[in-house]
C-alpha cells in the first residue's frame, strides 16, 4: 500500500507528464491545422509520387524514361532554366543597390506601394497588359522609335522576351521588397562605425554590408528562382508555348490535363520540384561560407 502510494508520488499522472513536455489542451489546437496540411499537401505529394511510378504501362520508371528520352519533353528543363536563371540573377542583382538607396529614403511607402502592385495583381494581368504595351504598336516600341533608337518595331511578344519581361515586372518587385526587408534589418550604427573608422562607401558595402546580407540574399535568390521556374500563365499568353518558351510547367499541365495521363503529369511535376530543389540546395549549400551572426551593433 505504502509502496504503491510512493510509486504514484514518484510518477505524476500522465496528463501532468505530457503537460511538462508541452502537450496539453492548448497544444491540441494545432491538430486541425496539421490534419489539413496532411490531407491537402503531404498526402497529395505522396499520392503524386506513387502515381508517377505506377504508369499506365511499362515498368515503374516508364514515365521518367519517357520524359528523359523525348527531346520535346526534356528540353523544357533547359528552356525553363534559360528563362528563370537570367531573370532571377538580374532581379536580385539590381534589387541590391536600389534597396540600399531606398533604405535611406524617408518616404518609402509610395514606392513600395507601387512596387507591390504587380506582385498582387499577378502574372495573368501583367501578361494581358504586356501584350498591348510591348506589341508592335504598343507604347514601348513607339517611344523607342520616337527617340530614334529603333527604325522598326521590335518583336517582343509571343517569344522569349515577352515572358522575360513579365518575369521582370512581377519578379523584380518581389526580390526588391524582400531585399529591402533584409537591408533595413541591418543596424545603421554598424555602417556609421565603419565610416568613422575611415571605410569608403565601396568598402562599407563589400566588407560590412555584403557579408551581413548574403544569407538573406541567398533566401531571396531561392524564392525568386523558384517562382520564375514555375512560370506558367505568362509563358502561355506572352510566349511561344509550343516553341522557345515551352517551359516545364506547360509540359506537366499538358500531360496531366490535355492528354489525361495524370501519371506522366505527376512525374513531370516531381521532376520540376527536383530541379528546383537542386538549385535551392546548391545556393543554400554555399551558406556555411557566409557570415552568420548578429546584424545589430553591440553595446559600448
Amino acid at each position, binding site marked *: 500500500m505504502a509502496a504503491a502510494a510512493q510509486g504514484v508520488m514518484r510518477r505524476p499522472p500522465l496528463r501532468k507528464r505530457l503537460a511538462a*513536455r*508541452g502537450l*496539453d489542451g*492548448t*497544444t491540441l*489546437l*494545432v491538430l486541425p*491545422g*496539421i490534419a489539413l*496540411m496532411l490531407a*491537402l*499537401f503531404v498526402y*497529395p505529394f505522396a*499520392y*503524386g509520387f506513387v502515381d508517377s511510378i505506377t504508369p499506365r504501362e511499362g515498368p515503374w520508371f516508364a514515365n521518367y524514361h519517357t520524359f528523359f528520352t523525348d527531346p520535346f519533353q526534356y528540353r523544357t528543363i533547359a528552356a525553363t532554366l534559360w528563362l528563370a536563371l537570367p531573370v532571377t540573377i538580374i532581379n536580385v542583382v539590381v534589387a541590391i*543597390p536600389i534597396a540600399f*538607396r*531606398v533604405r535611406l529614403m524617408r518616404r518609402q*511607402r509610395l*514606392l*513600395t*506601394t507601387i512596387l*507591390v*502592385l504587380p*506582385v*498582387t*495583381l*499577378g502574372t*495573368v*494581368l501583367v*501578361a*494581358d*497588359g504586356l501584350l*498591348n*504595351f510591348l506589341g508592335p504598336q504598343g507604347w514601348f516600341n*513607339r517611344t523607342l522609335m520616337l527617340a530614334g533608337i529603333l527604325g522598326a518595331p521590335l518583336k517582343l511578344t509571343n517569344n522569349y522576351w515577352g515572358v522575360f519581361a513579365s518575369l521582370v*515586372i512581377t519578379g523584380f518587385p518581389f526580390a526588391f*521588397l*524582400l531585399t*529591402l526587408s*533584409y537591408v533595413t534589418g541591418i543596424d545603421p550604427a554598424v*555602417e556609421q562605425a565603419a*565610416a568613422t573608422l575611415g571605410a569608403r*562607401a565601396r568598402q562599407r558595402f563589400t566588407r560590412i554590408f555584403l557579408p551581413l546580407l548574403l544569407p*538573406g540574399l541567398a533566401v531571396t535568390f531561392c524564392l525568386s528562382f*523558384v517562382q520564375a*521556374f*514555375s512560370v*506558367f*500563365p505568362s509563358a*502561355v*499568353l506572352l510566349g511561344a508555348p509550343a516553341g522557345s518558351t515551352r517551359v516545364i510547367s506547360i509540359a506537366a*499541365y499538358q500531360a*496531366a*490535363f490535355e492528354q489525361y495521363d*495524370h501519371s506522366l*503529369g505527376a512525374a513531370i*511535376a516531381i521532376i*520540376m520540384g527536383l530541379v*528546383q530543389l537542386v538549385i535551392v540546395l546548391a545556393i543554400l549549400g554555399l551558406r556555411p561560407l557566409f557570415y552568420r551572426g548578429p546584424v545589430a551593433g553591440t553595446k559600448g
Partner: protein
Amino acid sequence: MIRDQSLAARLWRFAVWAVVALFVVNLIGVIAAVLVNSFGTRWLGTWLPAAWTTRWYFSAWREFQLTPVLIVTFEIVFTVVVISGLVGVTSAYALARRDFPGKRLVVLAFLLPLLVPPLTYGIPLATLLYRIGLGGTFWGVVAANLVPAVPFVVLVMIPFIEQIDPRVEQAARVFGASTTSLFARILLPLLLPGMLAALLLVLVRTLAMFELTFLTAGPTSQTLVVALYYAVFASGVRAPQSIDAMAVVYMVTTLFWLVIALQFVNPTQIVARAKQRTADA
C-alpha cells in the same frame, strides 16, 4: 546620412534612381495600357485611341457573364478566408504558446506550402481532387486554395501571438474567467489587429491566386482571374477592349482589397512574410 559627394558617387546615385524610374514608368505603362484600351473605341497605330467609350464594360459584363463569376469568386474567397482564419489562428496559438516534441516538423509542414510554388504541388493535388470527385467543384477550389492560405495565416500570426504576454491570460484565469470568456473578452480583442491583417492578405492572395484555381476549377467554379486567363488565351474571339475591360474589373476588385489591407500592413510584409523563419529553416 553618410554622403559621398564625389562625381562617381553622384553618377552612381543617379544611375540607381534612373533604373527605379525606368521600372516604375514601364510598370505604370503596362497597367495604363490596359486601362486606356478598355475605354477606347479604336486604337490602331496611334498613341491614344481615336475616341472614348464605356460600352466595352457592358459588353464584357454580358459576354463573360461577370455577375455569376464575381459571385462565385467572392463565395470562394470568403470561404477560404473564414476556414483559414479558424484553422490558422488556432494552430498559430498552439505553436506560439507551447513547445512540444516534433514542433520543428510541424512548422516545416506549414512552411513548405509557402516555399514550393503552387504549380509543383497543384498538379498532384488537382489529380487527387478529380479522383475523389471534388475536381471542378466549389469545394475543390476552396480545398486547393487552403493549402497556401492556412500556412500563411499561421506564419503571420505566430509572432503576433508571441508578443502578447501570457500573464494577461493567466491574470484573467486568476480572476475566474472561463475559457469562453477568456477567448471572447481577452484574446479576441488582442488578436484582432493581427487577424485582420492576416485575413485581408489571404483575401488578396486568394483573389489573385491563378495556378491552383486554374487547375481545380470547373465551368461553374471559375474565379475572376481564371476567367480572365481564358479570355486572354482565346483572344481573337472577343474584342481586345472587351478583355481589357474585364481585366480592369479584376484589377479594381483586387486593388480595392489591397488598399484596405495596406491600412494594416506595410507593403514589404506582403512579400517578406515570416522571413526570419525562412532564414532559419
